[in-house]
């Protein structure tokens, strides 16, 4: 008891003190900073530039000057290092990347001149890729560093290898649930992703993940390439069993120590590159800014210089492409000044070296949605072979790689950005009902194969829960342990893609069987091993048969009219019919709530208590609710109540010559016995006006209809009576919380307003109305 009393007293005192504090003006910093602290941006940590310690985007303290020495057709020095001092990376680049035939000539071109050529639309891409074969890492880095972010973006768009842009999705989930993987893979395919990539929470589940995504990606259309990111040897085995068609886990690093710490050498990675090709599997390498810094082996060199080394290495290895642009190091790169510009610059080097570029935009570099959108924009509008090298097609928590820049949550934002800029980001909206059909189809196909091959049996509950689930938190499905057993059995039974094709066919999944056969046949010809290859409409397109030929406006990738229509077709788009349909639904309710009676032509009034309320042509005839959703009958009641509270008399007049709020108000005032009137549009925008004022110089304006309440209408009407008595009331303030009302309402506003203006007629006579409120109002 005593304690409780003490606590109560103490709490009261604390509250009083807190209250005092909040009213105190003695704070030692501006409160705006507290507001900033509360924003997600402030979850990002930023780092100071420190070139000695590897924190420099463009100018490391140990970055070398560009240079090359060629003797007897061999590189004898490169970027200030003589051949006998080459580390493994220098040695590999000098041996396999540098073309001695062109090196001296290319290196003699000043970097600023090379930079100008990159942004000169009259210099063809092929001339620049030819020169790049003779350029050293330091020279490539020095040249792109001359460009500002806009120039880099432009040069990237001109230099990327394949003309048609594309995109890649991550398909993973927190339970490694094969049913969900299949369903989500089918969705990724329907959205238009050219490639999908999976990985596992538990390494052992790799075969199960591969089978599930492989089947899911065969639903709906053929040709989506698929990879299962796992341990090198196993990944190749899964590929050889025919489940996967590409790989991008061949990571390279820009310093020898980081490379060796990654347990590889340029030669071992180049061996792997050939190994994938020898099995007919598409392959790209991976590198990105700040990987070396994260691993602790930066050698005081800049992010860009180290990346230039990585990229020359990749070209030297004969990799057709690269996953490049920060990648896992993107958040660290973005913590530095110029870090995001550097990420763009390294991507530019990649395409200058004629590599396919899966341009990062995967590992989310910021908690700020704004920083994320700003970073992706150049790639969206300029195009990229694969804009995101992992767009999270699933929810953030289901992404086993880590959240991407864009995820299942933000997918529609990406679709809208495409629509805004009429830019082809590779994706197309999938209609609701179709999405569910595809998910069910994928789940059924996989469930059949699991049962048919004696791997597992999915229950109806599992299937149904997964079909409608947004993410794995919503599913009632296989336990992770069961997935391990499924995976072991696939590997143990040596199940191949042919077994899966036959099983699908047995189960009546004919299209899926055909789609899978199509995909696996790609490896026989090896056409998709060429630079930037993807499959579109059943055909391999690559930098060979779809080369980027940009040489200025009218060339390069252009959005066709058909594609433009697809980009425009997002969900839930408003049109005039939609507005009228919504109003028709309200009309019946209003018919039971209010009746307007026409009393003929309205003349100027003489009643000294009269406030004329002037309504627009569509008010209660075609439009029945304000933007805030108030029934117009309720608005009329509120106005009437307010006028009567002020001792006035309401007279209702409909104007047919205008639907403009100001003119409705002024016209009402001029008919009013007191000279004060209210004008109101059917969408709820209102004004108090006085007969001697200029049209747009009103007494009070209520422009924010979406947030105007019935109480506000009542107070407005009351104020009109105060003005009528020649007094000055407290103007009614409709408080805003900073809503982007234009974005929320203007499409509807414009449509409603067009409906109203269509009803107006020049010089039409106003009409007196009386209203009867019925029982439902």
């Amino acid at each position: 008891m005593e304690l409780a009393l003490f606590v109560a007293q103490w709490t009261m005192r604390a509250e009083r003190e807190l209250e005092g504090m909040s009213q105190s003006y003695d704070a030692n910093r501006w409160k705006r900073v507290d507001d900033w602290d509360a924003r997600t941006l402030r979850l990002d940590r930023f780092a100071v530039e420190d070139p000695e310690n590897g924190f420099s985007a463009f100018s490391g303290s140990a970055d070398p000057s560009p240079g090359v020495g060629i003797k007897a057709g061999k590189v004898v020095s490169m970027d200030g290092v003589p051949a006998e001092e080459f580390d493994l990376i220098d040695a590999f680049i000098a041996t396999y990347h540098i073309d001695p035939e062109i090196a001296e000539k290319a290196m003699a071109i000043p970097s600023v001149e090379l930079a100008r050529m990159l942004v000169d639309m009259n210099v063809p891409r092929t001339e620049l890729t030819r020169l790049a074969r003779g350029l050293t890492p330091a020279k490539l880095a020095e040249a792109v560093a001359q460009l500002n972010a806009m120039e880099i973006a432009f040069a990237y768009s001109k230099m990327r290898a394949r003309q048609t842009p594309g995109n890649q999705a991550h398909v993973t989930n927190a339970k490694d649930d094969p049913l969900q993987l299949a369903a989500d893979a089918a969705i990724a395919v329907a959205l238009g992703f050219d490639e999908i990539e999976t990985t596992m929470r538990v390494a052992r589940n790799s075969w199960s993940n591969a089978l599930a995504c492989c089947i899911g990606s065969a639903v709906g259309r053929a040709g989506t390439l698929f990879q299962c990111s796992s341990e090198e040897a196993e990944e190749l085995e899964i590929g050889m069993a025919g489940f996967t068609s590409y790989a991008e886990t061949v990571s390279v690093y820009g310093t020898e120590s980081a490379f060796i710490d990654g347990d590889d050498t340029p030669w071992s990675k180049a061996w792997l590159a050939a190994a994938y090709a020898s099995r007919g599997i598409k392959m790209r390498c991976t590198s990105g800014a700040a990987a070396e810094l994260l691993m602790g082996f930066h050698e005081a060199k800049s992010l860009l210089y180290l990346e230039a080394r990585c990229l020359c290495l990749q070209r030297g290895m004969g990799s057709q492409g690269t996953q490049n642009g920060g990648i896992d190091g993107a958040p660290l790169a973005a913590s530095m000044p110029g870090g995001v510009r550097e990420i763009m610059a390294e991507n530019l080097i990649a395409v200058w070296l004629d590599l396919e570029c899966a341009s990062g935009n995967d590992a989310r570099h910021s908690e700020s949605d704004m920083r994320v959108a700003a970073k992706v924009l150049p790639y969206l509008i300029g195009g990229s072979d694969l804009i995101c090298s992992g767009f999270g097609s699933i929810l953030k928590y289901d992404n086993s790689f880590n959240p991407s820049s864009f995820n299942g949550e933000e997918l529609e934002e990406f679709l809208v950005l495409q629509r805004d800029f009429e830019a082809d980001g590779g994706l197309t909206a999938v209609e609701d009902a179709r999405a569910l059909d595809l998910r069910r189809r994928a789940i059924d196909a996989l469930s059949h194969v699991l049962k048919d091959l004696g791997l597992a049996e999915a229950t109806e509950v599992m299937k149904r829960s997964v079909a409608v689930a947004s993410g794995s938190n919503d599913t009632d499905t296989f336990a992770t342990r069961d997935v391990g057993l499924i995976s072991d059995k696939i590997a143990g039974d040596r199940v191949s893609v042919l077994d899966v094709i036959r099983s699908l066919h047995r189960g009546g999944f004919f299209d899926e069987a055909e789609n899978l056969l199509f995909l696996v046949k790609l490896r026989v010809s090896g056409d998709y091993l060429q630079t930037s290859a993807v499959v579109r409409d059943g055909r391999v397109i690559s930098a060979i048969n779809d080369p980027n030929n940009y040489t200025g406006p009218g060339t390069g990738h252009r959005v066709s009219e058909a594609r433009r229509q697809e980009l425009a077709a997002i969900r839930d788009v408003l049109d005039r019919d939609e507005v009228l349909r919504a109003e028709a639904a309200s009309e019946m309710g209003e018919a039971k709530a209010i009746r307007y009676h026409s009393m003929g032509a309205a003349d100027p009034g003489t009643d000294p208590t009269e406030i004329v309320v002037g309504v627009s042509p569509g008010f209660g005839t075609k439009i029945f609710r304000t933007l805030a959703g108030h029934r117009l009958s309720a608005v009329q009641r509120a106005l009437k109540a307010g006028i009567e509270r002020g001792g006035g008399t309401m007279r209702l007049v409909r104007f047919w010559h205008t639907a403009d709020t100001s003119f409705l108000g002024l016209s009402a005032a001029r008919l009013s016995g007191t000279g004060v009137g209210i004008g109101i549009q059917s969408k709820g925008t209102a004004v108090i006006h006085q007969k001697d004022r200029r049209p747009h110089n009103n007494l009070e304006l209520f422009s924010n209809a979406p947030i105007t309440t019935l109480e506000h209408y009542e107070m407005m009407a009351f104020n009109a009576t105060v003005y009528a008595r020649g007094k000055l009331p407290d103007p009614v303030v409709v408080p805003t919380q900073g809503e982007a009302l234009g974005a929320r309402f203007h499409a509807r506003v414009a449509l409603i307003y067009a409906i109203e203006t269509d009803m107006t007629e020049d010089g039409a006579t106003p009409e007196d109305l009386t209203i009867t409120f019925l029982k439902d109002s």
Partner: protein
Amino acid sequence: MADTPLTARDYPIAETSPDDVTGNRGKALSSLTMEAVLSGDISMEDLRITPRALEQQAEISKSVGRSTLAKNFERAAEMAQIPQDEVMAIYELLRPGRAASKDSLLDVAQKLRDELNAPLLADFIEEASRFYEMRGLFQKRY
């Protein structure tokens, strides 16, 4: 014709010559049908790329100035006939500290040249061995 290197005009070869492109047992791409799969006539070997297809892809990449990619395809053409275990064993040996000395890499190179008909891969391993020695990569790491 067979001696004329392919160019970008011959690409994609699956479209321009579906009867000439074959899997590893000589079955033409055009004969890899669903019926054949269902009847059990097709094995994974039939879906395996051949050295010839890889050489053709090398010719195509060379024709558009991608010499390094072409070289990778040429190495891959040699590797296509090497058993998987062997490919992975050599990969393992190329990783840092796996080979105890230059000789073990040179032994592999010799085998590639003499037994596996893979002179480009042999050169590649010999080159690696030279640089590994220069950089002291023959130390055990774990």
